[in-house]
């Protein structure tokens, strides 16, 4: 099947600054793809390049099989887009704003718009300039979803949304994927991506570090182990154990990011100390994410 997004050696330089370097990425139809990276990693540059808002220094990209530069107008018939730092027209109401974009786009079903507004609990009668940041964001989300596009590209979409609305929003994204459409979700809210994405691409300093399924990332088996002792312990004692990625000591306890043999860790823990208690849990994406970057930094 034609990929929803395909980039080949996509590169963008701003003078001396290399914002994006040789990005090769493929997003399938029917998946939610999370695009993770810290601020300034190149997420927004990637999105703006594939939407033809800025032009690549080299390389190319296609959306739904169409070249993003040559067919930019045709492509926009099939996409919804929510930019980061969403700005709209302050003197228009939410409804006016959506009417404007619906007119420019054509083919928007207002029943669907009303449904979306209801699901997100959005009051469209207010002027955008009078809305809170979260309510503005809801209008932005509705305009990205309202034409039922084949691909929805969203850059940090959850900012300002309260937890209840975020949950509904995540449900909406999963529904899009279930209908065979795609979502490209840029975020540094890792828990959100963990909940909705099928696959995750991690970008740093303009380079794609890795693309993995969320399950594969989790199965990297980094665990968060907490050890409690009856006497104070030093972190250094555990730092050299194979598989220990990070260790923090706090008087009688230690918190360890660990992906080695548990047996080795317990041997050290019980050798000279009296181990009182132990907890172990699966690491969340946050820790996996940080681990990647720490590794990179060490290599650098």
């Amino acid at each position, binding site marked *: 099947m034609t990929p929803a997004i395909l980039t080949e050696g996509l590169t963008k330089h701003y003078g001396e600054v290399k914002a994006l370097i040789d990005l090769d990425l493929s997003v399938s139809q029917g998946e939610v793809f999370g695009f993770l990276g810290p601020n300034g990693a190149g997420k927004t540059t990637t999105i703006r390049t594939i939407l033809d808002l800025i*032009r690549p220094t080299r390389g190319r990209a296609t959306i739904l099989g169409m070249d993003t530069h040559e067919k930019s107008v045709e492509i926009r018939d099939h996409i919804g887009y929510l*930019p980061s730092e969403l700005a709209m027209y302050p003197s228009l109401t939410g409804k006016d704003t959506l009417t404007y*974009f619906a007119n420019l786009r054509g083919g928007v079903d207002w029943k669907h718009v009303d449904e979306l507004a209801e699901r997100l609990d959005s009051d469209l009668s207010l002027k955008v*300039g009078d809305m809170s940041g979260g309510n503005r964001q809801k209008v932005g989300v509705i305009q990205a979803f309202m034409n039922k596009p084949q691909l929805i590209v969203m850059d940090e979409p959850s900012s300002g949304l309260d937890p209840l609305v975020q949950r509904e929003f995540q449900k909406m994204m999963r529904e899009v994927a279930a209908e065979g459409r795609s979502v490209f979700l840029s975020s540094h809210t890792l828990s959100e991506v963990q909940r909705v994405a099928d696959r995750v691409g991690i970008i740093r300093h303009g380079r794609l570090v890795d693309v993995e399924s969320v399950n594969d990332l989790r199965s990297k088996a980094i665990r968060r182990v907490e050890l409690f002792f009856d006497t104070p312990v030093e972190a250094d004692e555990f730092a050299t154990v194979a598989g220990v990625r990070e260790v923090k000591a706090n008087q009688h306890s230690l918190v360890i990011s660990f992906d080695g043999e548990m047996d080795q860790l317990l041997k050290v823990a019980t050798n000279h100390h009296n181990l009182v208690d132990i907890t172990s849990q699966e690491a969340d994406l946050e820790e996996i994410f940080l681990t990647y970057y720490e590794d990179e930094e060490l290599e650098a």
Partner: protein
Amino acid sequence: MLANIFLKTTRDRVTGVAVGTVAVAAMFAFGMAVYRTIDVSFYYQLPEAYLDLIGLPEGGDIGGLAFGALFNTIGALTLGGLAISMGTASIAGEEADGTIGLLLGNPKSRTHVLLSKAGSILLLMTLAMLLLWGVGYVLPSMLDVSTAGLETNALMFHMLVNTIFYGFLALAIGAWTGNGSTASGIAGGIMVIGWLAVGILPLIESIDWVARVFPWYYYSGSDPISNGTNWAHIAILVGASAVLAIVGYIGVNRRDLKSRSVKRTLLDRLRANPRTAKVANRIAGTARVSGIMAKTASDHQGLLVITGAIMFYMSVLIGVFWRFLPESIFDALENFPDAIIAMIGGANMASAEGWFQAEIFSLTAPVAGFALTIVIGSKALAGEEQKHTMDLLMANPLSRSRIIIQKAGTMAIYALLLGAITFLGVWLGAFFGGAEVSWTGIAATSLLFSLLSMVMGGVALMLSAATGRTRIANYGALGVAIVAYFVFSFLPLSDQLANWAKLSPFYYFLGSNPLVNGMNWGHAGVLAGLTVVLIALSIPLFQRRDLRG
């Protein structure tokens, strides 16, 4: 430069003030250089009343002409405009940008913010005036032009105090209301109307005292370049500025500050009322967002109303004044020297056509028209980019060229509407004033005026498309407009340089004397063609660059 609010404000504004001041200085130098090449003997033949009207000192020479023509009129208006822009941005601007809360999140009082902003106005306007004073001091000796008998220091001093007054007026209104448009609209209106009234009212003996109502009178009414500093007038302006500062202080401390909130208009109220909602929705809602052209038109309808109202009011007023002009002035106007006639586009000042051409079409109309089209042109693309709405707009299936063409279309329609309003105003003014001007002449001139406005809007659009920066588009187009005006107005005064005036778009506006001769379709074609070329050039410039996010 970010150590405190005063320095930050100064840093933000210094470029704009510098560009405006240097433009005024350059015009002064240009004017003086051109005057040197011409025979200025006509200057001594001008009637005193007319000298008052156009702000020229009696008994001067080339230097007097240059100082009078520039600093008494355009220079003072430009600097007043810069001060109004600073005053408006001070409190109301921070509220509109939503930054006032951030600013007051620091341990600084509202009064501190107000004083810092006022201090910055004082500093920058003083520096601007020092620059002009320096140029006015050095340039005449460089060009070997005599300034004997001219009280240039007094003129500069009056201009500084006058400029600060208008800055503080906008500051006070902005601080009191939190509304930037109200502040700049009222302050700008009082300045422009005052400037015109103080020029015209003294010609009419029975009501000449009315001029004293206008603050501008206390700047130029005593003719400081001839008579020196009038300390009583200075005291009035300084006292009024102090009162305005106090008004600003009370205003900003008495009310809830706004944070990017949006004005509630009459239409909003009608939309909220169930009885009128249906009709009001059609006008304010569905209609204005039906497409890019309608949305652009809606965004700028306030500006059209303001510029249209000014043009209509001025045109009718000037027409009515025609009836009251004293007979004595006509003999003098009848014998105007060719040089001056060339300066106002070849019109005979003693005729009704010449009166309207000199008073409305030669300067007032272009200023209003350019204000309209340059703002639309510069905001068309760069405005959307700077407000970060372009990304959202471009997420729709629209090509970049379509966006340009639709926005340019609105600009052209608005220029035509302003031309139509001007036509109506001049026609009514001529009717009420008993001035004999053919309606076909008025229509032709109004249409050419619309086309000239489109050209300048086209320049702004092109710069907007090329750079994505409204500031460059605004200042660039304004610079082109000023140069074009001077090329058309001054080069004809010199026999050797007269032909070069054809390079100016103004030549194709008034060069054929359309109020008398009717439409010159060739000239209209040149202006329309220029507009089309500028819009066409904008397309590749916009298409090939990265959009600012």
